[in-house]
């Protein structure tokens, strides 16, 4: 019996168990992961792509991420980084493609109840974009459900106290900017 054959047999035997465990992890984390991506990117289509990519990467490392807490922390971090990368790519493309004109592509905003709220939300998003990177990242992650200061701190590698203080500063700046 060759090593490859034994390997294939083990894989086959483990597959249903892996699938079931991984499916459970997706169910537990999908809402939060999706929201993290959405908070950075601001539209559902991109958020979905990025969330899916994050789960696929988690799947490839699933052997070392079987514990729920470990999985949660890892996937939070990965989705945030992926979303940031995609946003930077978008911004680069936008700068390159629209450098010759002043009109800006309208941002897609989901979840607004009416036109006025849509306009306000768009304005708020622009103001968030203008925040310094350190404050913006903390604020975006803090807005996600189930993301406590400690979770945000774990993603960004900063203490929970710093997270709370930066959120406060960010809100103060927004309050002033939204006059």
């Amino acid at each position: 019996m060759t090593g490859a054959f034994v390997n294939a047999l083990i894989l086959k035997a483990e597959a249903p168990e892996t699938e079931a465990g991984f499916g459970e992890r997706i169910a537990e984390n999908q809402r939060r992961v999706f929201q993290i991506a959405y908070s950075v990117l601001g539209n559902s289509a991109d958020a979905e792509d990025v969330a899916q990519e994050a789960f696929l990467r988690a799947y490839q490392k699933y052997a070392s991420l079987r514990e729920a807490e470990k999985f949660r922390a890892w996937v939070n971090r990965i989705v945030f980084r992926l979303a940031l990368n995609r946003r930077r790519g978008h911004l680069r493309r936008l700068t390159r493609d629209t450098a010759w004109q002043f009109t800006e592509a309208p941002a897609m905003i989901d979840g607004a109840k009416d036109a006025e709220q849509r306009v306000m939300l768009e304005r708020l998003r622009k103001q968030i974009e203008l925040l310094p990177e350190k404050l913006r990242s903390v604020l975006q992650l803090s807005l996600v459900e189930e993301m406590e200061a400690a979770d945000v701190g774990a993603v960004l590698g900063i203490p929970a106290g710093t997270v709370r203080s930066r959120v406060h500063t960010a809100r103060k700046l927004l309050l002033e900017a939204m006059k």
Partner: protein
Amino acid sequence: MKNECEKWKDQLLETALTGTASADFETHLRSCTICSKELDAARARKARLDELLPLAARGAEPPVDFRARVLAASEAVREGSRARRWRLWTLAGATAAIVVLMIGVTIYRRTAPAFPKEELAMAQKLAEWRAPSDGLLRTPGQEMLRTMPRLGKSYLNVPVKKDEEE
């Protein structure tokens, strides 16, 4: 906001956000209608901000079939990785076989028995050996062996001594 109220700007925002004002600022508020109005406006903005900020992240939900889609994609990834692993094993096996073969050939060449000196000397002698009849080919009659003689002529041009004839 008047110039003298500028110094309360930060306090005003803090009060709007936290809901608590310092004693100094409260004293100022009692005597300054502009700052009081400004604080009311900031509180209204704060309420609006509280309403809008969650929408910036929670405005959308993942699609209903999101989990199924991720599982399908992960299955595809698993298949791909299995095929990649198989290709890797095949490549590693082939490389190992080639290396083993090369090592074998090298070892065989180094350890193969060399020819004894006596045998080499004999082979050399054999290569340089000439038959004794080879010498005959270099006699005066050699030309006769290569060409045909003409009528009335002989290759055996032996001068006749007249004295002897007489």
